């Protein structure tokens, strides 16, 4: 019988912080730009220069920590991490070693953060929290481009503010890793901390992964996978690596502690270096940089700009718009979806009807992938108008679905579609009475049946009335009108 293995995964996520200037000098912090156009003696690592920390980068790191429920250090410092590599001309990177800015905290995995085909799995609804170890602030390194026989270095990125978010080894599958990264990406985007575009390297992820026999507690030997540049790439790399390690172990082999890269086109990981050449970073406090106190304004300034968090938004939606907990949860868990909903209700459209249309029709139309909302021809104005038509009973819910389907194809506004298709529902009392009277006059048989106690005869009359009105009569109201006229002396 073969042993089943389970993975243990921890992620180290680097997030570039959106600031005007770099971390320790006044050079512009900008993606792209002419190579080496944003440099100065500080970020080129010239001897004798003095770095001065950017207070905004510190504030934004604290804000991230607050959004993720971390403890913010009262006092912390910067350390030097020594290593030799052409992307770091000082031969050390300024980072934080034993006193990071943020400790602890966690990331709750929202249902819609999971890959869409796994959103129905139990784990997606379990509100699992992946604990964080720490978040520290450091400087990014230069960007290297590799050519045939040489490498080229662009120092524009060198010295830009970077935070590293380190998780505990709480992640139990590639899908959870996917949801963790999606959630983290949304939170830093929502907080205005970073654009977190993985393709631009604004969010980068290294994975630590090991496997162990199911049911055992002891961690296996871990392997680090570096240089992953998409969230789906992280998922695929982990799936491959888990399978590779499980196969090695089940064939009686052992896992070496090593760093591997991910070859996306080939769909496999490959060895970068083994533990023997592991770095010795010789961290020590940077003598050029004085320690930081967060309690002298930095913390309160970060607190003051905290955005509304998903669970706070969920409660507000239930209270302000009377949404049910399902709709409130769906809409609040995703920033794009929440923004879409708020745009709908801002025009005075009824919240509940909007929520219903968004959580059901609209989400189904984008295969539950909220990031595709922007591409949909159905905009907030469409949903708001449709919700108003439904609320005012101008059309019934069945017609509403028809209108939605048409909007999805043509992008036309709902009122125009209703007009075009002659769908307007008749709810006006005198118009309904006229139709009902005509049906009563034309159907003496069923009328007599009803009056002699055969209540079911009403259905046949109602059917006649709907037919007469070409389906436009409000079905409930026409039934009531018929009943009222038939019972009248």
């Amino acid at each position, binding site marked *: 019988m073969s042993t089943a293995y389970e993975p243990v995964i921890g992620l180290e996520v680097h997030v570039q912080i959106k*600031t*005007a*200037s770099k971390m320790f*000098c*006044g*050079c*512009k912090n900008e993606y792209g730009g*002419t*190579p*080496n*156009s*944003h*440099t*100065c*003696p500080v970020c*080129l690592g010239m001897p004798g220069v003095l770095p*001065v*920390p*950017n*207070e*905004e*980068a*510190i504030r934004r790191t604290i804000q991230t920590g607050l959004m993720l429920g971390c403890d913010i250090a009262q*006092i912390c*410092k910067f350390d030097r991490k*020594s290593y*030799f*590599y*052409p992307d770091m001309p000082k031969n050390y990177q300024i980072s934080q070693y034993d006193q990071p800015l943020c400790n602890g905290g966690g990331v709750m995995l929202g249902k819609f953060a999971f890959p869409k085909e796994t959103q129905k799995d139990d784990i997606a609804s379990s509100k699992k929290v992946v604990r964080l170890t720490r978040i520290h602030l450091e400087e990014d390194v230069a960007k*290297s*481009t*590799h*050519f*045939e*026989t*040489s*490498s*080229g*270095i*662009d*120092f524009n990125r060198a010295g830009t503010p970077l935070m590293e978010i380190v998780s505990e080894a709480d992640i139990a599958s590639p899908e959870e890793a996917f949801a963790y990264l999606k959630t983290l990406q949304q939170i830093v985007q929502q907080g205005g901390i970073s654009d977190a575009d993985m393709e631009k390297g604004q969010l980068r992820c290294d994975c630590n992964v090991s496997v162990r026999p199911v049911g055992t507690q002891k961690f296996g030997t871990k392997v680090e996978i*570096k240089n992953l540049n998409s969230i789906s790439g992280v998922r695929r790399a982990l799936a491959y690596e888990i399978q590779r390690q499980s196969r090695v172990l089940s064939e009686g082999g052992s896992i070496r502690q090593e760093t591997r*890269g991910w070859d996306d086109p080939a769909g496999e990981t490959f060895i*970068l*270096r083994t533990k023997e050449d592991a770095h*010795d970073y*010789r961290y020590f*406090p940077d*003598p050029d*940089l*004085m*320690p*930081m*106190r967060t309690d*002298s304004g*930095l913390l309160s300034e970060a607190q003051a700009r905290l955005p509304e968090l998903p669970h706070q938004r969920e409660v507000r939606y239930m209270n302000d718009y009377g949404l049910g907990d399902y709709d409130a949860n769906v809409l609040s868990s995703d920033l794009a979806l929440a923004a879409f909903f708020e745009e709908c209700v801002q025009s005075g459209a009824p919240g509940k009807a909007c929520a219903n249309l968004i959580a059901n029709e609209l989400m189904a139309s984008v295969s539950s992938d909220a990031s595709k909302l922007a591409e949909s021809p159905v905009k907030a104005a469409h949903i708001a108008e449709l919700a108003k038509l439904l609320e005012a009973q101008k059309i019934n819910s069945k017609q509403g679905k028809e209108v939605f389907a048409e909007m999805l194809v043509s992008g036309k506004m709902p009122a125009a579609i209703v007009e075009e298709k002659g769908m307007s529902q008749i709810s006006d009392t005198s118009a309904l009475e006229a139709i009902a009277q005509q049906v009563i006059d034309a159907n003496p048989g069923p009328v007599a049946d009803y009056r002699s106690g055969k209540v079911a005869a009403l259905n046949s009359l109602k059917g006649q009335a709907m037919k007469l009105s070409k389906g436009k009569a409000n079905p409930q109201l026409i039934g009531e009108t018929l009943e009222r006229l038939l019972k009248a002396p």
Partner: protein
Amino acid sequence: MNVEYVAKLARIDLSAQEIETYQNQLGSVLEHMDAIASLNLDGIEPTAHASPVFNVLRKDEIKPSLPVEDALSNAPKKANDLILMPKIVE
């Protein structure tokens, strides 16, 4: 503490004679550390900085950078505004 190892980390090429000299010198520095380690330091907070100065920070403002030509002026090889070096692999 092995001088050869430290020299390797610091990318310094030392002769056998230098290794011996520096091993002795480093030894006496480390002996001094032993003297500190032998003191009773109970209740004394570890300090990274001796002066009680915190938050020497700057506002997030852009200052002019070097012209690209100046930034590249020390580079032995350059092309397309990049500093070129022998091919590096992680």
